[in-house]
Structures are given as C-alpha cells and as structure tokens.
C-alpha cells in the first residue's frame, strides 16, 4: 500500500508492539501520532497529545521504565524542549524499547531553524537511526524498537521533511501483540540520579555505548554496494536516495562504491574503515552538518590512512539536499562537467507575484489583529509586538506587520517580560495562541505577575492547535476521537496565577475587542501590572468543515457596487482573501471563499458590504 513516511513509522511502531505513544504536534512529525490515534482504541494502546514535548517525553520514558514499549515524536526543536530529561535518559536506560522520533526540517520548510539533531545523539549518548524512504522507514522503525529493547537504552529515529512527507510503497508485516500495561520495579540506584548514583550510571552508560558501537557494525540496514576501488560515496538517510539517482543520471552507477548508512550515531567504525581503506577517494554526502565526515576523518587519522576524504567542501551545508544539489556535487567531484538537466533558457517579462501563506478567510486572528492595532493606536501606546509561533505568526506579513519578535514557542511572553522593564517608552504586547499558551506560556505569565512586568498578553484562543492541522489541546474540550474531554480554562489559569485584568472577547466583534484591549492598556498604565485579553473564536476551517459535513449553510455577504467607493480597506488593510478588487478597484466577494464571518461589514466605512443570504440557524451552534 501507499503510506506517507510518517504513517510508515507509525505502522513500524505498531508492528513492534508499542503500548504507548505521546507527543506534541510539530511539522514534519505530526502525522505519526495522528495515525496512531486512529487505531489506538482498536489496539488497546495509550496514545495522547501531551501539553508539550517535555511532558510527552517524560510520560513515554516512564512507560518504558515500567516495561511498556513506547514512542514519543516531535519536530527537531521539540527536542530542545525535552532536552532536560533526554540528557539523563541514557544514564538510566529503560526496561523496554523507547524510541524518540525527531523529525528534522532541513530547508526550514516550516521551522525557525535547521538544527541537526544527530548532535543530540552524540551529546546524550543515544544512538541515531535514519531511514531514507517511507518504505525503509516502516521496517527501520520496527527494528529500532528491537534494538532499544535489546540494549535497554533509548534510541532516536531521525527523519527529515523529505522522508516524513514523502509517500511511497510500503509492504506490511504481521504486528507483534501490543502490551499496554507494565509494572514499575523500584530500583532507586537506577531511577534516582542523585550524584552518588549518577556517577555509577555514567560509567555503565559508557559501557553500553561501547556495546552499541559493536552492534551497529552488524546492523542490517547499513550496506556496501561495491564498484571498483577508486571512488566511494558514503551517504546517510535521504542522501542515499539522492546519491543513487544522481549516479544513475550521471551514468556512473557502476563505477562508484556506495556505503549506505542507516546508523549515523554512533557510526559503524569498522564498516567505514573498510571502505576508507579499500578506496583512493571518498566523498561523504550527508544533509546539514558534517557529522559522518568528521567521524571518517577521525578514523582515517587514527588508522594512519592516506585516503582523500571530502564532504562539505562539495556538498552544501545550508538547506536541504536535493537530487540536483547532490548530482551537481558528485559531477564536480568526479570532474564530469555538470548535470544532465537543461532548464528552459527564458527570463519571463511577467514575473509571478509572491504568494506567501496568509490567514484564511474568516480566520478569527484577522479580526483580533485589526482591532488590536486600532485599540493600541487609540490609546496612544507605542507597542512592541512580541510574537509567537502559530497561524497568527502570519501577522508578520503585510498588511499587519504585528510580530516584532518571534523566536520559539512561548517566547512571546518570556521576551515581553524583558522588554517591559528595559524599554519603558513602550508596552510589550505578547500575542500567543491557545496551544502555545498551554505549551510554554504559563511560566512566563507567572513571572510577569511576580516580577511586576507591565505588559499585555493576548491569547488568540481558536480552540485548537490550528497550524499543525487542528490537534485538540487541554482547552479544546474533546479528544482526537471526538469524545468529550475535561477543559482547562485559560481565563481561570490567568486569574489563578494572579492577573487582575482578564477579559474575554469575540474577535468577530471588533468594537468589543477594541474596548477590552483599551481597558487592558489602561490597567497596565495605571497599575504597572500585567493584563490578559483572551480572544475566543474557533478556527474557521473546523467550523467550515463541520458545516459542509452536516449540510449547514453559512451566511453569505456581498458588496453593494453602488455604495462601494473602491477604498480598498477590506481587501488591503483587512486583507480578507475572499475579497478582491475588480473594475476600478471596487471590491467583490468570492462566494466560494466567503465563510460568513461578517467582520468585513464592520470594517467597511461606507456600509457597502451587505448580507446576501442569512445562514442556517444551526450554523451559529457549530462554533465551540
């Protein structure tokens, strides 16, 4: 059958008999645990969205301590959040297989950096395994669980965007029976890392690391495809796929030896030594950092080899590898005079205008930013828009430009705490999503109360984790299965930690929203204390989908062409994608895109936007 790389990993985990999976969503890792959610009930295993990666890691780690095979999955930067327990997990080891999937994002398709998480393997003494295709991902995932169980040691399965988000053929095998419950055996000398225990555990860990180093020499997913003794290429993960196709396209497949590596940390020393000592020249092709290249050079030095070793001097270190980049590097290395592809030689006079992603039609974030800016201007406040990560990050683009800083999840509140005290001319306005608030926003808010930071925190509560594909979170009220869940109220959290000004508004009501923001800014100026505004409206995409499923019609708005003056406020300043300029700049609403939110009616200064067709009474009830 055809599976997405991430679905293939989920399948491999099921075939390995996992009993536990916990994760926090993040591109490109999300579909792994999404797929597991779909079969959790049927298999009788525990699958959860946790509040953040650290909690997800710890919970899965505990399952493995208690003898249940477990998986946690996160995007590369999620591992930073989980790094504290991660660094010690290799000291204690585990009782049953514990696999941490790190989905790296070379090229930064949807991330703030392109950190290479193989470093974490070296740093934490956790072996790293890398599949090169969806087909291999399934089998490798299964094998890594066996490996981790055998070694009683955590293991990384590292994918990248192009493995996670590639669809390819996968052959299923018989799953092992899942075991969802275990029994925790008390061993304080192993599970409590007071210094006296940790000193012993560190030595044991290094002994296990030696053994892991021997095991990877025999690992079945590494292999040498031998052709001659002149040139060898060492390739890991997806780079192997690019290398094979590049050699084919360049017509030199039968002249170059290829060492394919699925175990990159620790690298199989003997296998690499064998290839180094049997070839005159070796090129290492790996994505991002020169980890295997440095390892190969170290081996060559220690073994006094004079094999020529190259890597990042030919293969780009920045951005993701592609067939084209790898073929270019190999062609240059072998002196072949270029790649076989010839793009059309035509410089178009008509340039395609840029098309960045935008807030969707009917997105509640649009109303919030529109009203927020007006309130800030009316109050005469100089703002620092301390931004965060989520759909609302898109407000960094015109026309809003209301994300002055954006670093990492939860960073909006943390940075605001600093700005609040050092730049007294301005008031920091943190904008943070609901999922991000639960993930990493709360400690910063408590800090603002304790350290008296005069700042505004706006929580854009669209009821779900929208950016990564609508996963529920502690405030949503249901689980991925649709079953009802307890609700943690953002307002109660804010009041509970001591915020005195907490207002909830509907961002589809611009006046109400503006008023609440002004009230908050007044409070901050008057008292020097922080304030919170919660902007509450579900993600339109979810409501839209539900409406379509149930055959419920949304209201539809239209432009009265006689009243429209073509001022452009609705399609430029408000920038709803459902509204476009037509003849002479007058506005027109595309009925296939309009979601019926009605905010444009409030935005239009000429009362030119009117209701064309009211929605079903049921439509209002779909908002949650």
């Amino acid at each position, binding site marked *: *059958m*055809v599976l*997405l790389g991430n679905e293939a990993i989920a399948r491999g985990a099921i075939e390995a008999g996992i009993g536990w999976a916990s994760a926090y969503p993040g*591109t*490109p890792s999300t579909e792994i645990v999404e797929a597991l959610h779909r079969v959790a009930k049927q298999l009788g295993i525990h699958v959860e969205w946790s509040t953040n990666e650290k909690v997800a890691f710890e919970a899965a780690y505990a399952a493995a301590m208690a003898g249940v095979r477990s998986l946690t999955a996160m995007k590369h930067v999620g591992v930073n959040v989980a790094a504290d327990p991660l660094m010690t997990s290799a000291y204690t080891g585990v009782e049953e297989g514990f696999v941490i999937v790190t989905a790296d994002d070379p090229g930064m*398709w*949807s991330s703030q950096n392109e950190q290479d998480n193989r470093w974490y393997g070296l740093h934490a003494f956790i072996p790293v395994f890398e599949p090169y*295709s969806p087909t291999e991902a399934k089998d490798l995932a299964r094998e890594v669980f066996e490996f981790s169980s055998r070694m009683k040691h955590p293991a990384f399965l590292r994918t990248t965007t*192009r493995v996670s*988000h*590639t*669809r*390819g*053929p996968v052959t299923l095998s018989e799953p092992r029976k899942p075991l969802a419950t275990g029994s925790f055996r008390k061993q304080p000398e192993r599970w409590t890392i007071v210094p006296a225990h940790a000193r012993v555990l560190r030595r044991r860990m290094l002994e296990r690391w030696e053994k892991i180093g021997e095991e990877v020499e025999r690992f079945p997913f590494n292999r040498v495809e031998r052709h001659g003794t002149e040139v060898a290429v060492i390739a890991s993960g*997806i780079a*192997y*796929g*690019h290398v*094979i*196709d*590049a050699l084919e396209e360049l017509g030199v497949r039968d002249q170059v030896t290829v060492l394919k590596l699925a175990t990159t940390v620790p690298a199989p020393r003997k296998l690499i030594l064998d290839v180094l000592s049997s070839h005159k020249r070796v090129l290492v092709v790996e994505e991002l950092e020169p980890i295997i290249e440095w390892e190969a050079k170290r081996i060559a030095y220690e073994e006094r080899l004079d094999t020529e070793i190259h890597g990042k001097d030919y293969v780009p270190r920045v951005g993701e590898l*592609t*067939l*084209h980049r*790898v*073929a270019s590097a190999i062609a240059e290395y072998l002196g072949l005079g270029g*790649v076989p*592809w*010839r*793009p*059309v030689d*035509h410089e*178009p*006079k*008509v340039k*395609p*205008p*840029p*098309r*960045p*992603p*935008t*807030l*969707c039609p009917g997105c509640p974030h649009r109303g919030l930013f529109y009203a927020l800016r007006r309130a800030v201007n009316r109050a005469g406040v100089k703002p620092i828009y301390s931004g965060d990560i989520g*759909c609302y990050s*898109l407000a960094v*683009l*015109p*026309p809003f430009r209301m994300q002055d800083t954006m670093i990492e999840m939860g960073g909006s509140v943390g940075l605001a705490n600093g700005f609040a005290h050092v730049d007294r001319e301005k008031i920091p306005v943190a904008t943070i999503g609901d999922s991000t608030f639960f993930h990493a926003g709360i400690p910063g808010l408590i800090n603002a109360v304790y350290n008296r930071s005069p700042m505004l925190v706006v929580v854009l509560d669209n009821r779900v984790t929208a*950016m*990564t*594909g609508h996963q529920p979170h502690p405030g949503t009220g249901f689980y991925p299965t649709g079953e009802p869940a307890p609700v943690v109220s953002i307002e109660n959290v804010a009041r509970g930690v001591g915020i005195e000004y907490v207002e909830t508004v509907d961002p589809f009501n611009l006046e109400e929203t503006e008023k609440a923001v002004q009230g908050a800014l007044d409070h901050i100026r008057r008292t020097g204390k922080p304030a919170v505004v919660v902007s509450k409206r579900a993600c339109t995409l979810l409501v839209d989908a539900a409406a379509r499923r149930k055959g419920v019609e949304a209201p539809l708005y239209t432009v009265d062409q006689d009243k429209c003056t073509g001022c*452009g406020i609705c*399609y*430029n*300043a408000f*920038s709803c*994608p459902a509204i*476009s300029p037509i003849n002479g700049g007058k506005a027109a609403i595309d009925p*296939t895109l309009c979601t019926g939110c009605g905010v444009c009616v409030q935005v239009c200064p000429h009362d030119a936007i009117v209701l064309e067709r009211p929605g079903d009474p049921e439509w209002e009830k779909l908002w949650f």
Partner: protein
Amino acid sequence: MSRLNVLLAGVGGQGLITLASVMAKAGVIEGTKVLVAETHGLSQRGGSVEVHVRFGRVESPLIPPGGAHVVVALEAIEALRSLKYMNHSTLVLVNRRVIRPNLPGVKAPSLEEILEELGKAGVKVLDIPATDLAIRAGSSLAANMVMLGALLATGALDGYISRGGVEKVLETMPPRWRRVNLEALRLGYGALRETEA
C-alpha cells in the same frame, strides 16, 4: 521502465496532495513505483504549493530543475513559477484560472500574459478550463481530477499508470466524492481530445 517526473503546482487548498496520492495509489495497483514529495504545514494556508511525483526507477523523491517531463498547474501563476523545472520538451497542462495572491496592492498577471510567457519559453502548453469543468461535474474542488483526466488523455503517463487504474482508486472514495471525481476525470479526458482536435 525508466523514470517519469511530474510536477504538480497550485495554491494551498486546491487538492494537490489528493491528486498526487491518487496517482501513487494507481501506481500500486499497476505495479509502478511512485514517490510523492509533498509540502505540508505553512503551505496549507493559501500559499504556493509544489508536489513532486516521480514514477519508475526512482530513489530520490525530488525533481531537479529542468527535469520535469510534465508540469500540471491547477493555477496559472503557479505554472509560471514552475518555469525552472521545465525543459524544451516539457509538457505543461495549465488550468485556465488565476488566483490573486492575497497581498495588499498586488497585481496579478492575466491568463493571456501567462500563456504567452509560457509559449515564449518554448514548452508545449495545453490550457484546460478545469475549474469550469469541475463545477459542471459537481464541485470546483474536483479541478484536480479534471487535470488528471486531461493528463491521461495526452498519453504522457502511458506505461506508468492508466485511466483504468485511476478509476479503480476513485471507486474507493466515499460515494459523494466518487461520483463527482469520476465525472471530473471523464470531462478532463474529453476536454483534451477537443483541445487537440
């Protein structure tokens, strides 16, 4: 069997991933290896989307610049953006639809300007009223299947996947979509025959 590279271009929400995954499933039915590289996440929010579909003896999922045998654009500006993937023998199928990028003050080129540029680039262009035909089939969202029908009619996929294989995949969809998609596929197949005549 050697290799066939099909680049799909369009705007987030137009059903490119569905289109690619129908092709991949048809590949499984017909014993052809298919790799599909998708962009998820940010690109879902109305941004440009590129999906790489590679058939045959392939291990890398990415099409190199100048390496597309076929480009299928569900939106015309995105066809122009894909120029770098085209070479002189690339076949380009363009939906006759322009979607204005949602940026203040942006001026979108017209369909005629875009087709003229593609013509000057020296590639073979077939323009298809896919959105109109999709609406006739029952939903504008089925423009992706209209384009696939037209692509099958060109014969470019011969030896990799067939109309019969694609229909088998569409048969497995929920009833409402099955009917619309099969009709869209048929209209696309017929439309090309008319264009060529």
